[in-house]
């Protein structure tokens, strides 16, 4: 069975500090990987997607970057956090190449920027 794990579960960071969030998928080879951001009580906004190792596409510009160093790993990072970065970050995967848009989400990482 496929599993998706995100880390850390929660972070409290200062404005201007760096950030790194991670995601690992087990049990599925070469999945599409995604990062989503969700404001408290808000909808899901896609940030990045990746269909293969080393290749990441940005969907929106939020002063964040993403990398896929391994087939099963997706990293979200920034060198300087903004207050607006607070929220819930969700990693997700979908089947590749056959894909009907069905996403499987991780448990999320809650980020509070002070």
């Amino acid at each position: 069975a496929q599993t998706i794990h995100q880390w850390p579960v929660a972070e409290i960071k200062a404005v201007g500090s760096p950030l790194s969030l991670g995601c690992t998928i087990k049990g599925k080879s070469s999945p599409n990987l995604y990062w989503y951001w969700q404001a408290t009580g808000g909808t899901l906004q896609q940030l990045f997607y990746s269909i293969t190792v080393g290749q990441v596409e940005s969907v929106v510009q939020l002063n964040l970057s993403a990398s896929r160093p391994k087939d099963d790993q997706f990293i979200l990072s920034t060198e300087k956090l903004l207050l607006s970065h607070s929220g819930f970050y969700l990693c997700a995967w979908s089947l590749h190449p056959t894909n009907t848009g069905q996403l499987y989400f991780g448990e999320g990482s809650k980020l509070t920027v002070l």
Partner: protein
Amino acid sequence: QQQVRQSPQSLTVWEGGTTVLTCSYEDSTFNYFPWYQQFPGEGPALLISILSVSDKKEDGRFTTFFNKREKKLSLHIIDSQPGDSATYFCAASGGSALGRLHFGAGTQLIVIP
């Protein structure tokens, strides 16, 4: 431009009642419409989905209806239970290999015992 509109923003129903959530969309190329259920502090989980070739899909107490002509879809929950209290998101996709899902704003459902 908001691709998927969802209503209501919040909804309170009594236990045993029927819940109806609705969504509309703009892009006529969308052909896959999932509904996700999200509990506080958790990631969303797929609840039920429908393809544009169908007009109804049922899974236990959950039924989703699709109206291609009107570009609308709905989620019906019969015999609503307190455990159904969650936020529900509709979404739409054009079925591209990139799996780009456009999410609605969500409906917060509270089921009162």
